[in-house]
């Protein structure tokens, strides 16, 4: 007996699971989306021969420009500021107040930074001219002596480093805080003191 076949139904693919998955993918990508935040870097090379050694002393006639930075702390951190001295000059330069990490960048603040850094740059250029050598031959020293130097914000030091690099000086020495004493060093010191 012939069985009549049913008429073909309007079969449609069930799209729901696919749409579910696709939406989940979108949510994943949305949550993990993070636009590139760094676009630049300053390349540097630590000295292989004296990584942990105390600061080397250079001969007096050695060509160098020294920039000394220290922090004036205030009870209100937003009023703290960094002071800068070049070589043995009496004049001090004050960087904009505040703890940069907690302040939004305002154009006034950036202008204030630019003003100080441009002044530093012109002074360093004058010194380079007086030295007479090429900038690569002149050593730059960034000195942040403890305890007040250690509290100078990283961003301020990068700004000073940037001044040296802008004028073509590439041999930069950082002088600053030693690491805290190790437990054995502390024990030895305590034993020596008792």
């Amino acid at each position, binding site marked *: 007996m012939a069985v009549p076949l049913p008429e073909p139904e309007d079969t449609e693919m069930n799209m729901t699971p696919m749409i579910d998955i696709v939406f989940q993918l979108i949510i994943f990508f949305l949550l993990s989306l993070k636009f590139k935040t760094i676009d630049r870097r300053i390349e540097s090379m630590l000295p292989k021969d004296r990584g942990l050694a105390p600061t080397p002393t250079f001969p007096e006639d050695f060509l160098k420009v020294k920039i000394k930075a220290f922090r004036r702390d205030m009870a209100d951190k937003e009023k703290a500021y960094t002071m800068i001295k070049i070589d043995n000059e009496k004049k001090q330069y004050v960087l904009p107040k505040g703890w940069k*990490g907690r302040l939004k960048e305002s154009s006034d603040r950036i202008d204030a930074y630019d003003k100080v850094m441009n002044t530093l740059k012109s002074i360093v250029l004058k010194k380079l001219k007086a030295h007479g050598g090429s900038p690569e031959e002149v050593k730059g020293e960034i000195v942040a002596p*403890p305890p007040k130097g250690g509290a100078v914000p990283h961003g301020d030091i990068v700004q000073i480093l940037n001044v040296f690099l802008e004028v073509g000086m590439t041999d930069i020495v950082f002088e600053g805080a030693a690491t805290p004493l190790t437990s054995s060093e502390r024990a030895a010191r305590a034993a020596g003191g008792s």
Partner: protein
Amino acid sequence: MAAKVITDTEDAKMNMTPMIDMTFLLVVFFMLTIDLSQKEFFPVDLPFATTGVEDKEEDDEVRRFVINLTGDGTVHFKSYEFNLASEDPGEQDDAIQALQDALRQVHSERGEILLREKDGASKVPVMIHADWGAKWKYVQWIMQACAHPDIKIYKLQFAVKKPPTEKGS
């Protein structure tokens, strides 16, 4: 002329095709823009510098280590976290030793022989991705940890950003 009278509710279906098209386009967009390597970077307020060079992709073999330093003195390296801002010098020293251990361990996991120059110096650069407001002495301590005689990482990179006043920013 007799108007058409709809008596039965028709099986009205929404046309899903444009929505699916758009959804796929969104998926493709996110797949192309996602950069999982950025996961290594903690959200910090980077200092700006005009002399910074463009941060380009590097050789996978010597893929750099990224050490994050937040404004409060906390170091984030891989899954490790160290607090350099303790009041106690002993705890600070412990944190530095722990950072050195972590550097040593992660470096050895990547293959000591392949990643060393003939003089023992590491080929792997370290990027210091530090907040503008982080104390400079903590950055120095990180540099000293990298240059430790057991670790010998001398190639450093400071993460910076384009100055806001510079053209094109």
